[in-house]
């Protein structure tokens, strides 16, 4: 059991989202950074779509009331137990009674905490994701609060073995980390004016030439009112060639729409299902994790990518994640031999 001593800015239970219900207007929700979430799960022997805790900017203080096998993937929010840093992107054993805390958000905006066995919360509409606005799913439909107690489900066989193996190694220490971590190709690189690859949107051609150019050449700053629903960008004003009314239609994870004030919004995990603003672009799926790790105040620069290239990269990425999954399974077996 994990007890929440301090909730942090926004800590919620999420999985890969609520699919199949958008036709009824139910938003997808789910994690902002699917890559970090999936890898965090794989590292502790969970299915990649199991629920994790999404921790935002200023993290919580969590007390482990039982020994646990965990992993942290995503941004670097200075996780520590006692005077030891909790190393990311690898399995970590945490001893009963330890307090996991977070400090400064050094790099990135969110980190995913996976616990072997995954969190024991009910499924609502086939998902464990928290839909904050409607107050459903996840842990009682809301972000975590002080005093909440989360339980984990039963561990997979591999996870149970690795946990007892590390337990022996720990010899009473509060935590032991594996000395290996996932390959660096999966670990995000943080840059100033982060490049984000974008496919031209359905209404790209309706924008003024200057606006089309500015979109791909000027940096955009992530505004302070950005949240899980969308990132509000600040930059050059983007204008349509001719004002026109759009008929509302579906939007997607990473759709960049431009309301009449000319400041684009990147629609993210908690986006509405449909929208009536012109779509200037669509973030390539492989770069959604890059966007999810941008903090308000940081800047992004959009780079054009063709649909063909974006799909190719996506298929390659999926293949390498499958290979990683297999690699982790082997590694976990080897360690306990």
């Amino acid at each position, binding site marked *: 059991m994990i007890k929440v001593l301090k909730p942090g800015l926004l800590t919620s239970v999420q999985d890969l989202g609520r*699919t*199949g*219900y*958008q*036709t*009824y*207007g*139910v*938003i997808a929700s789910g994690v902002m950074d699917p890559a970090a979430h999936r890898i965090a799960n794989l590292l502790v022997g969970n299915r990649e779509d199991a629920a994790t805790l999404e921790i935002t900017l200023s993290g919580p203080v969590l007390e482990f009331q039982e020994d646990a096998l965990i992993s942290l993937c995503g941004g670097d929010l200075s996780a520590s137990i006692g005077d030891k840093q909790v190393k990311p992107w690898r399995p970590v054993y945490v001893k009963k009674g330890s307090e996991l805390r977070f400090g400064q958000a050094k790099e990135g905006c969110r980190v995913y905490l996976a616990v072997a066995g995954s969190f024991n919360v009910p499924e*609502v*509409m086939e998902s464990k994701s928290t839909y904050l*606005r*409607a107050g*459903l799913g996840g842990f009682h439909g809301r972000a975590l609060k002080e005093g909440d107690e989360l339980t984990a489900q039963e561990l997979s066989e591999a996870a149970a073995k690795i946990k007892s193996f590390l337990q022996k190694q720990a010899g009473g220490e509060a935590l032991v980390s594996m000395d290996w971590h996932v390959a660096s190709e999966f670990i995000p690189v943080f840059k100033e004016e982060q490049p984000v690859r974008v*496919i031209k949107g*359905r209404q790209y051609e309706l924008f003024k030439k200057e606006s089309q150019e500015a979109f791909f050449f000027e940096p955009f700053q992530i505004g302070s009112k950005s949240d899980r629903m969308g990132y509000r960008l600040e930059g050059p004003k983007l204008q349509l060639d001719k004002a026109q009314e759009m*008929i*509302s*239609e*579906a*939007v*997607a*994870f*990473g*759709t960049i729409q431009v309301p009449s004030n000319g400041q684009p919004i990147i629609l993210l995990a908690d986006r*509405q*299902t*449909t929208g009536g603003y012109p779509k200037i672009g*669509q*973030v*390539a*799926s492989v770069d959604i994790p890059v966007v999810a790790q941008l903090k308000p105040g940081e800047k992004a620069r959009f780079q054009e990518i063709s*649909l*063909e290239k*974006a*799909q*190719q990269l*996506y*298929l390659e990425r*999926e293949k390498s994640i499958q290979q990683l999954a297999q690699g982790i399974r082997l590694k976990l077996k080897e360690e306990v031999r």
Partner: protein
Amino acid sequence: MEFNISPLGDHGAIIDLGKTIDEESHERVKQVTAFLNDKPFDWLIEYIPAFTTVAVFYDPVKVMDQKDKPSALPYEIVRATIKKELPKLGVGEKRQGRVVEIPVCYGGDLGPDLTQVANHNDLTEEEVIELHTAGNYLVYMIGFAPGFPYIGGMKEEIATPRKEEPRLSIPAGSVGIAGSQTGVYPIETPGGWQLIGQTPVRLFKPDQEPPSLLHAGDKVVFKAISRSEFDAYKEEQS
């Protein structure tokens, strides 16, 4: 059936089925939705119907798993498949949608903008209620919020622009007007619609399958009820 297909990112495609919001486009959207609802493709993740379009979301890995054209990319395969299948749907018979009655308690604290709607249109409050209950309403799509219906068919005589300052919180069940549209808020949310009343009926039921009371294609009848009927209905539900 005439249609266009274009990409929505690297996981989606939008099927365009009309240029204007009207019953013909809506019928085509309904036909395509009915077809997709039978899960005709392994790679189909989900779909989102709207006024004149249906968006299809696909899993590119699954598309490639079952393809026999190794050089083509997922979108091209999805596009070709849809292009082949849709014309087979034919025009078909118009299916009669359901009729759903929604009781509304108009005015007072449940409909704080009824007076404004009346004043804007030089009508009495009673006339606004009469016109609102007399509409020939069709649910074109569900979107914006869970179970939120975009309803066409409101009488132009009661059309009223949105509020200049949206309210930060609108109670669930509020019935509103925005321009020449009318709608019902299924959950508490911010919004700029003119609120003329409230229904005690729940439009979003997360514990039921399907979770939305209304579906695209439904006809809606608004029925005026008194405050005591409203309270009784609420009581019954809880």
